[in-house]
């Protein structure tokens, strides 16, 4: 009964993953084996190191802010009376539900150089207008902002579910011992939620690291390639630039982070399996 599943995964996931390693060792016309030629070519280019740096900055800062916002907002939702919680939760999850390609277009329009609705507000309150996507630093900020906007609701839902599962007695006990709200979070909430926090962060790190939609639509890697991350650069080289081996080599650099995160997630799952 698992045969169709194994066939699908084998043919369209495992095989391509291995095949991409093979592809990465070919020359541009895919006729000759060049070994590590593509990699040494990449290592010599400044743009490659820029992409490495940008991918890490993008993924790490986006995940940190998503987790922080998710954690805080989950507490706020948890604090309001129970009958209102459903409504708030429903409203706050909307960014996650809209297909990212479409919501990113809305952001693109909000950032538009001449019609930016944000700059309109800034002009009203006397702030200088910002070239959101035209300036490399602001463009980097913008892609991270949109990613945080899209991903934070996921953390919110996970943390809210985790908060609900913390037994109320623990807080009461802490309160009797004279703990203030900060101590309650530090000594009760965080230890109880440690598992779910680590797993969502690792999950999100993988997904964010491999993100494509947001950068592609907002900046296409520009201005002057300053916001490229692995996925968009691989797309540009491999599909648009027709150099499939080079694109494959670039996308392979997502593999180490993936492997590290997978090891941690597996360890976590195994440990929980043993506890149960």
């Amino acid at each position, binding site marked *: 009964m698992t045969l169709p599943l194994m066939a699908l995964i084998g043919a369209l996931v495992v095989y391509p993953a291995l095949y991409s390693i093979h592809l990465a060792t070919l020359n541009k016309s895919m006729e000759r084996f060049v070994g590590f030629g593509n990699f040494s070519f990449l290592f010599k280019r400044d743009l490659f190191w820029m992409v490495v740096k940008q991918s890490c900055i993008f993924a790490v800062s986006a995940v940190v802010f998503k987790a922080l916002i998710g954690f805080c907002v989950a507490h706020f939702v948890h604090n309001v009376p129970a009958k209102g919680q459903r409504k708030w939760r429903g409203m706050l999850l909307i960014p996650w539900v809209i297909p990212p390609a479409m919501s990113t277009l809305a952001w693109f329009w909000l950032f538009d150089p001449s019609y930016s609705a944000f700059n309109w507000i800034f002009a009203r309150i006397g702030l200088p207008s910002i070239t959101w996507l035209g300036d490399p630093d602001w463009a980097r900020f913008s892609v991270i902002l949109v990613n945080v*906007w899209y991903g934070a609701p996921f953390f919110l839902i996970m943390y809210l579910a985790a908060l609900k599962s913390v037994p109320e007695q623990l807080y009461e006990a802490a309160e009797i011992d004279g703990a203030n*709200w900060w101590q309650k979070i530090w000594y009760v909430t965080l230890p109880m939620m440690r598992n779910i926090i680590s797993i969502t962060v690792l999950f999100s790190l993988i997904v964010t690291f491999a993100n494509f939609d947001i950068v592609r639509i907002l900046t296409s890697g520009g201005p002057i390639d300053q916001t490229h991350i692995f996925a968009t650069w691989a797309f540009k080289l491999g599909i648009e630039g027709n150099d499939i081996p080079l*694109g494959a080599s670039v996308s392979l650099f997502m593999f180490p982070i993936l492997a590290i995160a997978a090891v941690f997630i597996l360890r976590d799952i195994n440990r929980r399996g043993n506890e149960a």
Partner: protein
Amino acid sequence: MRPSLSSVPQNLSPGGVLAGKPAKTGSMKGDRRRALFWSYFFLVLFAIFFLTPPIYMMITSLKSSAEIGAITNPWFVYAPTLENYTALLGSEQYLTFFKNSAIVSLVVVVITMLISIPAAFALARMKFWGSATLGMGIFLTYLIPETLLFIPLFKIFAWIQDMTGIEVMNHYWVLMFIYPTLTVPFCTWIMIGYFASVPKELDEAALIDGAGYLQMLTKIFIPVALPGIIAATIFAFTVSWADFLYPMAFTTSADQLVLPAGIVTILIRGDVYAWGQIMAACLLGALPPLLIYAFLMDYYIAGLTAGATKG
């Protein structure tokens, strides 16, 4: 396996106790009221942050191009019009995108279920050689991002086209074969959890009554684990509706694009951005997932949280 999030009275937060129990001291009561106030304050703040883009989408979609071009207050509609929507619904191109998306997503859901349900059933109930490893392996494949696979897949499908002469590139139906790689691992993974929670007594009773594995699956597992199957279906549908990378890589002709790729590549052309129409197209395109979410929110959220909590 109902989602445990829906209101659970005994888990009322300190703020919620305010109305019921008398507070111990006056200052504590004040503390709670203050906590509640700040919670609402920040919730409103974050709601504004989270809802600005969709609301702005809506505002823009109701404007005519003339009004957008005139740089009036971007946050207000002076002359609301539905012309963008009527233009889209009358445009053959947009309807083609919509039709392609709908066909692909529905077929992917069916394929996913046909593969995932038997596999999850086998992995949850039959202990065979390597079943535990296989379960882990499925989870691992879920972690391989599409951005790692699109280039080799592109090459593989190009090779298939060369070998067999079947035109697979640049046809929307090729996505039906590719999307299951996104949906099947996760759906199988969460359904293993749901199936494993079906009481063993039920299948023993069925075995005694002479049911085979197939009957056991259709008469017991599918009905009992229905919430899980619904959650997985929703996941499969929304993922295939929203995917952007694969259609960008595999399809280029205007009549073969699905919604996300279609809006981005065809509607945005050159310097003349018909933003009212683009925003209307996005909003209409986001409607199916939003409607599913609105009506099946509990299942939607159950599917979301199951991935990490079932582990």
